[in-house]
């Protein structure tokens, strides 16, 4: 993606996005509501046209070579959409046909099995539960085995067990070489699954790095210290970040300092009632970035 911009009337939804996602990557696109994630995906999928800039999928320009670009792309839309006139299997057979696939039964059966929809194959889509409709959308996006798979909040409303099996399935596809682009508000999903993360805010990329580096770069570790009503000794004041449930939240960038702190407390005669360590997770990094800090 190069300099992608999108105006919706007076709304400036994307303000120049440059992003390269390598083949075979598992990539997360994060950002608060309205940041422009879905807009970005719509531009890739040809559902909307860029006001400026360009995008390519597997080397195919999404407007000039739209047929080949779309064939290379599978999109799970964010909205829970379905066609109530048809059954699950009919939906998938039609979707295959739109991609020029006449006999796709074996792969459709595999998709149904992997997504826990096998026993609903002949049910009308209107009687599916919300989570099942979501899974059908995933299956629809995969009918043509696209090399690039885009999932716009695929786990919203999906139960825990299926979320796990869905991710196992997507992970397997990724290992087979499919490129995955994912948006989600469950940051622990992005943290465990994705190699790289981009954070979007008001239509701009405000952070872009390997997930591990983002976490390390944040260099934050907190010590939660419960010393009851006793005052915090002078030598710890500089580390104090705030209070949480009556506990002092202290900065602890370096693990080895823990020893010194405990020794200092003992010397000051302060009894420790409870103590916990907290590692930063992607959520902390996310919140920090969104408040305007750097990752």
């Amino acid at each position: 993606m190069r300099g992608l911009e999108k105006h919706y009337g007076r709304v400036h939804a994307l303000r120049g996005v440059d992003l390269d996602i390598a083949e075979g990557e598992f990539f997360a696109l994060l950002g608060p509501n309205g940041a422009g994630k879905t807009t970005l995906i719509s531009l890739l999928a040809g559902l909307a046209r860029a006001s400026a800039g360009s995008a390519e999928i597997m080397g195919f320009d999404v407007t000039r070579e739209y047929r080949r670009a779309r064939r290379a792309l599978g999109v799970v839309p964010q909205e829970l959409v379905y066609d109530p006139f048809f059954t699950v299997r009919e939906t998938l057979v039609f979707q295959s046909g739109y991609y020029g696939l006449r006999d796709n039964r074996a792969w459709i059966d595999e998709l149904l099995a992997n997504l826990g929809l096998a026993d609903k194959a002949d049910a009308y889509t209107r009687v599916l539960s919300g989570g099942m409709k979501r899974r059908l959308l995933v299956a629809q996006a995969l009918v043509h085995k696209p090399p690039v798979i885009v999932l716009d909040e695929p786990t919203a409303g999906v139960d825990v067990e299926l979320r796990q099996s869905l991710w196992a399935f997507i992970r397997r596809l990724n290992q087979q070489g499919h490129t995955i682009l994912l948006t989600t508000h469950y940051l622990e999903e992005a943290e465990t699954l994705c190699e790289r993360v981009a954070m979007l805010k008001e239509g701009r990329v405000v952070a872009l790095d390997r997930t591990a580096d983002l976490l390390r770069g944040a260099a934050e570790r907190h010590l939660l210290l419960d010393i009851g009503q006793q005052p915090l000794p002078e030598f710890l004041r500089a580390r104090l970040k705030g209070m949480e449930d009556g506990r002092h939240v202290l900065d602890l960038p370096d693990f080895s300092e823990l020893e010194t702190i405990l020794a200092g407390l003992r010397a000051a005669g302060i009894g420790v009632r409870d103590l916990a360590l907290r590692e930063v997770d992607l959520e902390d990094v996310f919140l920090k970035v969104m408040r305007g800090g750097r990752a």
Partner: protein
Amino acid sequence: MTGFMTLLRKEILRFWKVLLQTIAAPVLTALLYLLIFSHVLEAHVQVYPGVSYTAFLMPGLIMMSMMQNAFANSSSSLIQSKITGNIVFVLLPPLSYLEFFLAYLVAALARGFAVGVGVLLVGVFFADIEMRHPGWVLAFALASGTVFACIGILAGIWADKFDHLAGVQNFVIMPLTFLSGVFYSIHSLPAFWQSVSHFNPVFYMIDGFRYGFFGQGDVDPWLGMAVVLPFALLLAVATLMMLRSGYKLRH
């Protein structure tokens, strides 16, 4: 090709699955018109020599049903898909706008023809109907069906809600079809309305179609086709251009 065939199959199945609403109901409506008008007017009106009023009425009713249902099919399918959002299923795949157009066009024609044949089959119980020039019947059916299928696609894409569509239906489609000589020959109208009718393309569609049955009409079928065919082509091109522009489909 597979893409087009699949979309066509889906569009045909869509109305076939609710046959009672999409085919049986309009046939019944036409039957009611037939019963009432022929009962009231049979004894009083004879438009063409040797043709009973009921027989005269039949082609007009068939054509009117075909046109209204061709319009209803493409417009309602599109607006439903847009409102429910499942239009993305056909926007995401690599279907060309030509495939998209042809699938919606042919499905609308199929629904129109199914209703038309239904009305014809019911009609033969009520009147002697002969088809002198099947070629003209088919040509006018195809050209007119195309016109209304295209208007349906245009309206379905333009409309943001069902109200908009009902507006087109009530203020464009209904007046055009009713005021086109379905129930009368324009020669029975005052001179002023006769000349007004000549500006209504639907008049030529009905008249040419009727000529195919009786071998007589208000105007020459070649003249009629010379009006209807360019009109159909013009609408088809306009529809294709709208689809290509992505208007209201691809923001």
